[in-house]
Each structure stands twice: as structure tokens, then as C-alpha cells.
């Protein structure tokens, strides 16, 4: 295969990857950063890094975990660079508020705000399990923690949400 064919195939492979996983990348970045504007920056950086590292992705089955790992690292880099302060729910920027924009469904709005308020340690595994469909093992690998710790965080996250939205805790 000559260079130009290889380049075209590489680009096609990348485009396929992006078309499949872009939504998950953005939503993961948004829930990590709790700021749509930051999420867009993080996704841009993550796409660039994924493009440069594409040859390291050997198995397409591993693509989702791979792109989410890149998003996670880019998000951490972003916050390290900017040294942003903790989000104050009562004093959000316009961009942060956009994530909590009211819809016609007040129940949905309440749950979204409750998730937004969760500590990072609880919000992230919940996003990975419920939205991304990750197993406990996959979440543990991505977050660099033990499966037992993932389960504890998920249990606490749901109980906190239940309390926050007025349904009481499970145990």
C-alpha cells in the first residue's frame, strides 16, 4: 500500500471512529467538566490526540474505552492548565447554566440539577455506567480505582440522588 492510500484509509478510519463516538465523547466531557464550552474544547483536543495516536488503537472493540480515556485525560489537562475553581451551583457562568437550562419536564430538570451537584467522584462512575453502558470493571480501569470502590461510589451516588430529588435513600 502506498503512502497516499494509507493516509486515506487512516483518515477514513478516523472519521468512522468520530462519527460513532463523538456524542459520547462530548457528553462525557460535559459531565466531567460541567461546562459545555469547556467540553467542546476538551473534545477538540481529544480528537487531535486521537488522530495522532490512532495507530495505537489496534482493536476496534476497544475504541469506546480508548476515546473516553483520551477525553478524561484531556479534561484533566484542561483543568490543570486553567486551574479552575470549584463550580458554585448558585453562581454559575452562562456556559455552565446552559447545562441546566429548564425544559418542559420539571422532574427531568430536578434530576439533572441533582446530578450536576454530585461530587466528581460520584458523578463520573454514574455517567459511565448509565450513559456509556460501562461495566464495573471498565469503569474501574478507566478511573484507575478498584471495582469495589466503583460499586461503593455508585451506591452512594444513587442514594444521594434519591435524597436530593426527594425519594429517600435505598439503605
Amino acid at each position: 500500500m502506498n503512502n497516499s492510500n494509507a493516509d486515506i484509509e487512516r483518515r477514513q478510519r478516523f472519521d468512522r471512529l468520530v462519527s460513532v463516538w463523538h456524542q459520547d465523547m462530548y457528553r462525557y466531557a460535559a459531565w466531567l467538566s460541567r461546562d459545555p464550552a469547556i467540553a467542546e474544547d476538551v473534545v477538540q483536543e481529544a480528537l487531535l490526540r486521537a488522530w495522532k495516536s490512532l495507530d495505537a488503537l489496534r482493536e476496534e472493540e476497544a475504541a469506546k474505552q480508548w476515546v473516553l480515556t483520551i477525553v478524561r485525560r484531556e479534561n484533566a489537562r484542561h483543568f490543570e492548565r486553567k486551574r479552575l475553581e470549584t463550580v458554585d451551583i448558585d453562581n454559575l457562568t452562562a456556559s455552565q447554566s446552559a447545562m441546566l437550562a429548564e425544559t418542559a419536564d420539571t422532574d427531568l430538570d430536578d434530576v439533572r440539577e441533582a446530578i450536576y451537584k454530585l461530587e466528581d467522584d460520584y458523578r463520573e462512575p454514574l455517567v459511565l455506567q448509565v450513559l456509556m453502558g460501562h461495566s464495573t470493571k471498565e469503569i474501574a480501569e478507566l478511573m484507575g480505582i478498584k471495582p469495589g470502590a466503583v460499586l461503593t461510589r455508585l451506591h452512594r451516588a444513587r442514594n444521594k440522588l434519591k435524597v436530593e430529588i426527594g425519594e429517600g435513600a435505598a439503605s
Partner: protein
Amino acid sequence: MNAAGKDMNCEEYKEAIAADPSESFDGGPLHSAECSSCSALKAEMRALDVKIAAALEIEVPELTMPELPAISDKGKVVDLSTRRPVRWTTPAWFGLAASVVLATVIGVRFVNTDVDHGTLAQQVVAHLDYEPKALTVTDKAVSDERLYSVVRPAIATLDRDFGLISYAMSCEINGREVPHLVIQGEKGPVTILLMPHEMIDMPIQLDGQSIKGVILPVGDGSIAIIGERGEAIDQVKSKVLDNVKWSI
């Protein structure tokens, strides 16, 4: 959580179902089939998850593809051809009693890297040149005091459980303080660099004429482990990963 094959009690079930409403844990379906209150709790948790899923599905803006740079072959595999080629025989270097230096050997290839990773890998390998005395074959361990002054609690916590640590020094990689440790492996000294600030996406294999190693992504940082060819790097790797925890 319960072990496979054992009956769950209600308390265990309540904890487990709140962590995993899909009820994929051992003993779950059996318990909820026989316990109406736990079965109701399962339905409640699943209903909550439906709400959570809907709330998480925020609107996604249209994709704006960044400008993608051309990828050269050089960008895919960084080859340090400028390094001096060195002849090296394993028994000779292992037999030397002191001041055995590994670094000048190298001629290393960094596999599966992009240019940024290559830069990190180059710095890691180049660092070996700066401290040749680190690579001494010895049975003398550094003191606890020395070790904990280098691996400070603010950087990482470390159990001494991964071999005889013969060298500990605070060094610098990419302008950041990095604990540089050497343990005595089966084939000789093994260098370990704890780099809590150097994030990488994938492991970077270091493949040299006389050395073999890897830079592993660990949490938000990375750890380089480099030893003589034939060294049981995988064993060292799992011991290091079991015993080092970032504080940063």
C-alpha cells in the same frame, strides 16, 4: 457484596442493587425473586436509572472537526538514531560490581507513540545518562528516611514491597519533580521514574538493544520502568502498580 453461589440477605441486596440496578451481581436475581420488598426496590432503582439516563442525555452540538496535522511515519515510531550504538553483553555488565552504566547502551525505539510521547520517552531515556551511578549492582538498600524524602507524601505513597530499592533521588522531567528509584531486579538494576504530572494515553514501549521498558499511564500520571533485556518487567510492573499511589 456476596460471593458466587451464596444466598444474599436483604441488606447486601440493597447495597448491590443501588450500585448495579441491572442486577448482574451474583445471587441477585435469586434473592429478588424470593423477596417482594427487594423486588420493589429493584423496580424503584430501575425507574430512577431511567430518569438519570434521560437527564444525562444533554444536547450535543454539531461536530467541528479540528484541523488534523499530517502524520509522518516518523511520528508513529520515534527512533533515536542519533544515540551512539553500543555493544553490550549481558553477563559482562551484570558481573560488574559497581558503577555499571546502562544508559550509553541504548539505541532505543519507542513503539506506539506520537511525537509528544516520543518527547517524554526521549527525556526518560536521556535521564538515564545523567545519573549513571544509579545503575549500580548492589545489595544495599537506601534508608527509609532517604526514600520518604524523595517519594514525599505530597507526590505519592509507596510501600517498600516491590524489591530492594538501592537508589532514590528527586529528579526533573519536563520541569517537574520526579522521584527516581532503582530496584535490584533479577537481571540487574531496574529504573523506576514516578511521574505524577505526565499523562499519556497508552503505554509507550521502550525497546532497545540492551534494555527493555515501558512508560505506563497510571491515573493522571505515568510511571517509567526500564531494565536490562530479559528482565521480568511485567512482574516489576505489577509490583510497582500495587505499591504506588498518587497523592496529587
